[in-house]
């Protein structure tokens, strides 16, 4: 089985927003709809300071709270472990937005439905080895691949760089962070 996942190396993320805007343009999103959300932290005290940028997006959880609470079955976990939203079934109740512990779902005011990172499902399920945010990243901070393939670049990098879920084993995520 293929189970898609991603590694995000925050030690390389300069917080430039290129991934977010590339994703928005690629997916024709509204300006308010960012599938990538940033948390920024300063560490240390002047003059010994460092910055950390943490891009957050749908973690494509195996134990996805959004899927569990969705009253219409619009949120689902599909092929490749990609969590999706079926806009035809979504009634815009926003339960899923409240349930998501990572606050990475956004509401499309035009369509009245909820949307979020799709792991570029159209192209990845067609065999492409990448997502828009991975391609766009100015500092190669992202790796996309198959978590179930122990030889994939992603799987090897997760082990070599000790990448971890952002919030432990909260929801069995598919996105791993180097911090």
């Amino acid at each position, binding site marked *: 089985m293929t189970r898609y996942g991603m590694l995000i190396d925050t030690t390389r993320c300069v917080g430039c927003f290129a991934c977010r805007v590339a994703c928005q343009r690629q997916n024709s999103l509204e300006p308010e709809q960012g599938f990538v959300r940033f948390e920024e932290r300063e560490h*240390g005290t002047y003059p010994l300071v460092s910055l950390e940028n943490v891009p957050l997006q749908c973690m494509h959880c195996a134990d996805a709270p959004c899927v569990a609470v969705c009253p219409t079955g619009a949120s689902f976990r599909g092929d490749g472990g990609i969590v999706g939203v079926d806009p035809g079934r979504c009634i815009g109740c926003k339960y899923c937005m409240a349930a998501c512990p990572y606050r990475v779902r956004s509401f499309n005011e035009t369509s009245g439905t909820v949307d979020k990172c799709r792991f570029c499902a159209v192209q990845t399920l067609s065999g492409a080895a990448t997502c828009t945010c991975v391609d766009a990243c100015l500092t190669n901070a992202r790796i996309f691949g198959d978590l179930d393939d122990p030889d994939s670049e992603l799987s090897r990098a997760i082990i070599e760089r000790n990448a971890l879920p952002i919030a432990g084993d909260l929801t069995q995520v598919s996105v791993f962070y180097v911090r």
Partner: protein
Amino acid sequence: MLKNISRRGFVTGGVGVAAAATAGYLGLGFLTRVNSEKEGATDGAAASLCNACPHQCGYIGHTHYGRLAQQIALPAHPAAAGRLCAKGYGYSQIAYSPNRLTDPLKRNANGDFAPISWKQALTEIAERLGEIDPRSLALVHSFAPTGAWYGRRFLEALGCANCYADAAAVDLSFASGTRQALGTEQYEADTANAKLTVLIGANPAEDSFPRMLQELLASRQKGGRVVVIGPRCDRSTVLADEWVPLNPGTELAFVLALANVLVTGHHYDAGFIERWTTGFEDWERTLRSYGPAWAERICGIPAATIARLAAELAAAMPAAAVIGGWPKRAGHAYANAGETARALCLLNTLLGNWNQKGGLLLCEPLEFGALDTELIPPIPHPSTRRLGDAEYPLVAPTSGSVAHMVRAADEGTLAGALFYESDPAASCTNTAFVKAALRKLSLVVAIDVQMTETALLADYVLPETSYLERFEIPTLINGKAPSVAVSTPVIEQRHPGTRTADGIFTELASLCGVGQYFDFTVEELASAQADSLGLSLAALKREGIVYLNTTGFSYGKLPKLQTPSGKIPFTSDACKAAGYGASPAWVEPEPASEPSADEEQLLLVSGEGAVSNLRTNDIEDLGEITRHYNLARAHINSAVATRLGVADGDEVEVVGAGVVGRVRAKVSQAIHPTALYLPSGYGCTSPSLKVAQGVGLNPLDFVPFRIEPGYGAALTQGAPVTVRKVGA
């Protein structure tokens, strides 16, 4: 001048070969191709150059039903290196902006703008130009090649030498100081191979230089170290091993002290200096006064840190460099900025790193070959010098002093000005001064895609087609990968009332009686330029970028230098004549400001943020990021904020140059205690720019109008300001 240029072969990555360009894009290109096969004429692709900043990164714009659907950066483009920044993705949307200019506008008697026809606009402009002595006209143009070429030619045809490049606002001191040391205005860094890179003020993460970020990563992966020097721990410091803060405007003291340590310890490349330089002894003597302890008192960097960094440079040389990057921020826009740039070149010369692996690279300059004179007849050179060149003899000839042009407008030497995609009322120097100066002119014409601050002051505003809709003549790209790039229309023209620069200037020329110099189309011009390089325009348009069959540089070999001696001079007669040391010595960053008796003063520093500059500030996607993440805030050091009673997120009043502005504060450990940082690209007042208007402050509102002696740059950094909490 290059001779016998021929095609080395097209670089993959163009329209025709997007699918095969790189593994990274295989999927995207493949899908696009499949779609276009399936859907026939619904999909298209064309090569474009981003117009958001002077890097002009190349990409292929893919369309779906005529609308831009995808931007795939060209791996071969030297600045892009296969990536676009957030501004680049965002700025493509300018074509679709509801806030664009769509018809020519004329200011009427009560100061409002009314739409008029192109015929009326151009006829009236030509008439009024005819009433002005050409010597008191000026043009300020952007980096977009067609408008710059046609605009300059139009003014020359009128007999006017006053053409200025708007990029001067940021780069002028650096280009000018570098020219005094190297005879050229630019150089490249071989950062990917460097063992140690010291960045002074360069911020590729926010100034958005994709290739430089890639090179910094490559260097680090091979064990190289990166050190960032500057008043702000900016986003680029994520890729650095160390951030060393310093007092704003004192970069020169740091550079001189590094040189002092290298020279006094004999840690320099004596062989290189012997072979390639003149006047070393003079700088050696000058440097004696500038030890690390002296520098610590000025720049605040501990003497031990300066000595350690100098030792690290000595150990890593020649695969080490101290660089400013683009925009050349090394202490830029202070009164010592030109001399800082010159000292920086000479410090690197001590390291013997020119055209060494991991060092800095001096590349062969590129020029188009001679164009067909039957088609494009030469124009006699204007008999007078450009305004400002005599007053500022060190100014880079490619730019000229825009700040002096503003002063000439204020003093009445200038009567009329044309602004092509340039916005000095927001970007040059004290905004109130510029606006008042431009109001004194009898004719102001602005050509732009949107209603800029400068356009608001114009008598006529001419709406331009956006870059996504238009063809641009080829651009030469100097540097490591000598190449030529071209921008072609990705989408159809959206507003029938807009025109391109070539059309506007050609018709104006005809109406002004100099049409004989413009009896060719822009395609014919572009074709002649391509021909002069031995290229076919059709192929260039298809690929977007073509590498020229010439080596930009060779390791171990310097190109012929355009300095008086043909070598790198440690001394400059021109600098001495302009009142500086023959070899670089300490220069104060500011004329001493009046200390405020009762309020703590901070020094205002600015620079582009990650998503905003003056072009991208009205783009919805980017404006939303600014709003959501509060990116327009003023950054203030935590300890200072505590003293002033300012908490994170508080609204504060910034006071400087007699102007009071309100903005939210970002209280931060990541900024020098003497500095206040305001991101540039904000503070728009133009009512038609509905996304940008009223967001943040323009730092140039708070700086006094001053010009760098000799070099002619506007001094826009380090102005003293006070900050207080609103309502306190």
